[in-house]
């Protein structure tokens, strides 16, 4: 039976709940969202800019991998609600291998004897890696949106390339009866907008409502970051963060919606908390570009409609461009970061001396790096000179990082931190973590491609 809520005066309400704001978010959240009260859809966002490349590396090691494995546990934790209550899941957990992700979900559902009540929709077509050379020779330079450089400059180091796809294939999967929809690199916002578009039958040129769905998606795509998490306003008085309620969109056919959370949960949903999330990662507010629509964030109206309830209305949108954004990841050298902690008295001066000594030694060794960065945590690491002079802190952490193409040089750098404990400035501690680890850098290359070059496919596994 559907858990769909009804409201006599204003028509049907569809509830889309956010259960994951990034890969690594609270494992408890999906289960709490289905158990805390009625919802229709559970939206799980797993993909950040560089997540695709991590998944691509995993797929290279094992062709059955390459998706967000946390997702299988998340679905398992809410499986009864999907099978018995009709809650549907939309997630971009497929990463670079949506089909394997679907197979893993199916196997898990079989184990629990409910595979007949789970219909998995798989959205593919975003992966451009196999076609990359053909695209480049076909005149699609995939120039870096920030620097203008053509992709050919780093072509031999590319790990993954995925177009950000919109709501249409998700809507199709839902229309074909899928109750778990798994995508690859779909936009975060489409995961919320697609269920609303499907439920209310919004057309592909219904710009204002599509834009409203995108704004709803932007508000809840970072999980609790709109419901009291990371909220600066009155942070001391935000109740019960241990039990924080993740946000839910209560959508209506006319494109208006409310942001709410389940009763008896912590956190706070206010005009201030929602406003903070709206400006998060914002560019030009009049032009929030998605594959479906361009939303105008200066049209958004917020109103406190009750405790932990913010009504959102007035949103307008305009037709999208004929391009899709492409997320490309490429190998970009190596880095390592080391830290030591210096204690009072003169903690900062000791840390600064350690920095000079270390840099001199790196020089003597003839090590060359593309970049060296020193920070003094507790004095100036996050606010730089804006922090002013520190007032005799009890300790300062010296944090130094290097970056470069020469792995051996970065490796050698990691051996120069610990010796400072015995042969550098005094009152030093905090090196228990051991030698810093050398990390390969996988960098992000944003580009654009003609929409006509990307065809999505939808499969619904019976």
């Amino acid at each position: 039976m559907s858990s769909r809520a009804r409201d006599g005066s204003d028509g049907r309400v569809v509830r889309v709940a956010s259960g994951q704001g990034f890969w690594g978010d609270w494992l408890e959240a999906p289960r709490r969202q289905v158990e805390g009260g009625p919802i229709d859809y559970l939206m799980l966002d797993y993909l950040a800019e560089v997540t695709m490349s991590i998944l691509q590396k995993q797929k290279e090691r094992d062709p059955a991998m390459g998706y967000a494995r946390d997702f299988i546990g998340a679905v398992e934790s809410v499986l009864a609600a999907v099978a018995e209550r009709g809650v549907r899941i939309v997630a971009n957990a497929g990463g670079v291998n949506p089909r394997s992700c679907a197979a893993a979900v199916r196997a898990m559902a079989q184990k629990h004897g409910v595979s007949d009540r789970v219909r998995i929709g798989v959205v593919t077509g975003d992966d451009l890696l196999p076609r990359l050379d053909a695209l480049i020779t076909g005149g699609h330079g995939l120039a870096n949106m920030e620097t203008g450089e053509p992709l050919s400059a780093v072509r031999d180091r590319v790990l993954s390339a995925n177009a950000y796809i919109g709501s249409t294939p998700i809507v199709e999967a839902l229309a074909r009866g899928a109750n778990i929809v798994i995508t690859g690199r779909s936009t975060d916002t489409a995961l919320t907008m697609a269920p609303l578009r499907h439920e209310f039958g919004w057309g592909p040129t219904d710009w204002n409502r599509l834009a409203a769905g995108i704004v709803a998606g932007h508000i809840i795509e970072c999980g609790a970051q709109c419901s009291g998490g990371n909220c600066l306003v009155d942070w001391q008085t935000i109740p019960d963060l241990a039990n924080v309620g993740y946000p839910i969109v209560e959508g209506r056919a006319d494109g208006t919606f409310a942001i709410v959370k389940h009763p008896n949960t912590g956190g706070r949903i206010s005009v201030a908390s929602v406003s903070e999330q709206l400006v998060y990662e914002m560019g030009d507010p009049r032009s929030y570009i998605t594959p479906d629509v361009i939303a105008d964030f200066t049209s958004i109206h917020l109103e406190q409609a009750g405790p932990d309830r913010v009504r959102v209305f007035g949103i307008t949108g305009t037709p999208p461009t004929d391009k899709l954004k492409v997320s490309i990841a490429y190998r970009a050298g190596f880095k390592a970061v080391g830290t030591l902690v210096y204690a009072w008295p003169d903690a900062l001066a000791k840390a600064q001396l350690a920095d000079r000594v270390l840099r001199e030694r790196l020089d003597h060794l003839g090590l060359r790096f593309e970049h060296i960065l020193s920070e003094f945590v507790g004095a100036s690491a996050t606010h730089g000179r804006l922090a002013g002079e520190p007032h005799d802190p009890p300790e300062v952490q010296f944090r130094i990082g290097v970056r470069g193409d020469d792995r051996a040089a970065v490796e050698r750098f990691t051996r120069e931190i610990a010796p400072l404990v015995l042969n550098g400035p005094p009152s030093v501690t905090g090196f228990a973590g051991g030698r810093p680890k050398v990390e390969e850098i996988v960098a992000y290359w944003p580009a654009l491609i003609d929409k006509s070059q990307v065809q999505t496919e939808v499969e619904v596994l019976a």
Partner: protein
Amino acid sequence: MKVRLVDIAHARSGDKGDTANVGVIALRPAWYPLLQRHLTLDRVREHFRGEIEGPVERYELPNLNAINFLLHGALDGGGTLSLKTDAQGKVFSTAMLRLVLDIPADEARKLELPTGRQPRTYSRSPKE
């Protein structure tokens, strides 16, 4: 009189590549005109001088009583390239709130600006 931005506004910041965005929001709608008047492109550029390498962009959102700033070249390359603690620009928001505004005393009274805390000079803008 000196009014700390942190007492009349809140903020959140995030990243897009090597760019940090800072959205500054007035704590009361009546205080938004102060942000519009004082948080000029020049003022913010000066505030972050030496801390960022690129230009600054400014966008008003009167509907949210907010102004969004884009600080380019703020994140040491950004994303995974960055060696900074704040590689994703998460706390540029509070660095922005260190600004101190000069408000005429009668206007501050009329707008009921908070005066409870001692203003501290965080900003080193030559205009102060």
